[in-house]
């Protein structure tokens, strides 16, 4: 069975700063992976390399079996197939929620207006915000914005969803509604890679936890092992720090 994501020996530098230092990482179809690690360890950079928002310095990234370094590989198609949800939502401020969900469907997938609308409706229903479909982003709460951002990504029928700290910018009382949507996606079999500090999600929703530190994957495995009984000293220290005990 092909891996949805297959990364080998990935290096990424910004000028003199080496951020990813030899990452091997793969994800199976339907797998839910939580990536944890201290600030600056390269978690965002890893996600951004996966959907080609950053160009890697060396190494191999295969998405659905396609080598992204292959000049024949259409990067825009890859990005369209990899859904991405950002910490700060990044909704298109000048467009209504509906237009946020339809613009890329029409421009990239060349869907008709009716088809795009129908898919937008379906996804807004899925995130529980159908009544907000004609609203503008600035009228929504943070939690609602993030659910719209998820619906927007889903409208492209992605093969996988990448989440970069999707709840970090939210007030605590709004975190739950976003996690609930992510949990539903996971249950439906969506392939998910989520950078998150939500230990509930990492522990009970994900199939695997990856701990990154200083540009390398230090430890990975089922949450019941990595989170409960970490082997590496750095993992232990990090978990102690965020669990606050």
């Amino acid at each position, binding site marked *: 069975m092909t891996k949805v994501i297959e990364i080998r020996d990935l290096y990424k530098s910004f000028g003199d700063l080496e951020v990813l230092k030899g990452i091997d990482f793969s994800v199976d179809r339907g797998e839910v992976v939580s990536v944890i690690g201290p600030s600056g360890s390269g978690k965002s950079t890893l996600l951004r390399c996966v959907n080609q928002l950053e160009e890697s310095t060396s190494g191999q990234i295969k998405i659905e079996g396609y080598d992204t370094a292959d000049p024949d590989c259409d990067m825009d198609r890859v990005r369209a197939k990899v859904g991405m949800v950002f910490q700060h939502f990044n909704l298109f401020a000048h467009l209504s929620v509906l237009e946020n969900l339809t613009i890329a469907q029409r*421009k990239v997938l060349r869907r008709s207006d009716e088809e795009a609308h129908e898919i937008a409706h379906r996804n807004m229903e899925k995130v529980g915000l159908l009544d907000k479909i004609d609203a503008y982003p600035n009228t929504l709460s943070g939690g609602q914005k993030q659910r719209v951002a998820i619906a*927007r990504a889903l409208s492209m029928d992605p093969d996988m969803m990448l989440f970069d700290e999707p709840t970090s910018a939210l007030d605590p009382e709004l975190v739950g509604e976003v996690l609930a949507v992510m949990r539903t996606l996971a249950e439906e079999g969506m392939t998910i890679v989520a950078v998150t500090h939500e230990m509930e999600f990492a522990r009970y929703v994900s199939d695997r936890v990856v701990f990154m530190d200083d540009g390398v994957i230090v430890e990975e495995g089922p949450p019941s092992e990595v989170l409960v009984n970490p082997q590496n000293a750095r993992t232990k220290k990090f978990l102690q720090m965020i669990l606050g005990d």
Partner: protein
Amino acid sequence: MFAGGIAKARRERATRITTYVVVSAAALALLISTDWPRVFDKLLNPEIAAAQFPEILTIAARNTLIFTALGFAGGFVIALTMALARISSVKAYRVFAGWYIEIFRGLPLLLTIILIGQGLPLAIPVFRGIPIFWRGVIALAVVTGAYMAETIRAGIEAVPPGQMEAGRSLGMTRAQTMGFIILPQAIRVIIPPLTNEFVLLIKDTSLISVLGVTVATKELTRWGRDGVIEFANATPLVVAGIIYLALTIPLTFVARRMEGGKGR
């Protein structure tokens, strides 16, 4: 301490009154010594003012607006191109646009108009085929484009970088994201400064008459100046000035309102 304060206030008031008296006396002297009938005759002569109409509107003001509109449209295209070149990932484009902007913002407009309108046709014969009217328009567009390029670039850079990333992550190309996501948001920021640029351009069209005019291509300033010579009277210039103000003051007001509206 308080007593000193009162004395100080009293001194300040005395100074203010003295200033007021001196200025009023000077103004009064000027008013009395002025030959008012002559001023009205040479500056605000109703018959000469009336004689300007309707041509000062149908020819001169119309030409001013045509020069402004064409110069602005051409300038906007140039500016958008230069702004995009300026933020391009290709270094050669960035450098080219950078020099273009520096050069045409650094030269006096009059020099550029003469250079493009008279210098280039001398150096490059094909330019002689371009009518003088269009040489003037090109010169205006080239210069206003250099100024507007920086305005547009600033507008693009005011859009949060996350917007480009979100567009890209949905599979849109850079060009699509720029066109459908970034520029529509940037436009809101740049409309007030572009309106100010338009006002400047209305006034700057007065310079292109140095390239020479026919009766049909005179704009407001040239019309006023020729009127001064023809009638030995300044009234045509005053009328032209009033028409400029009727255009520029409302536009400036609108631009300021738009800027103010954005919660400053």
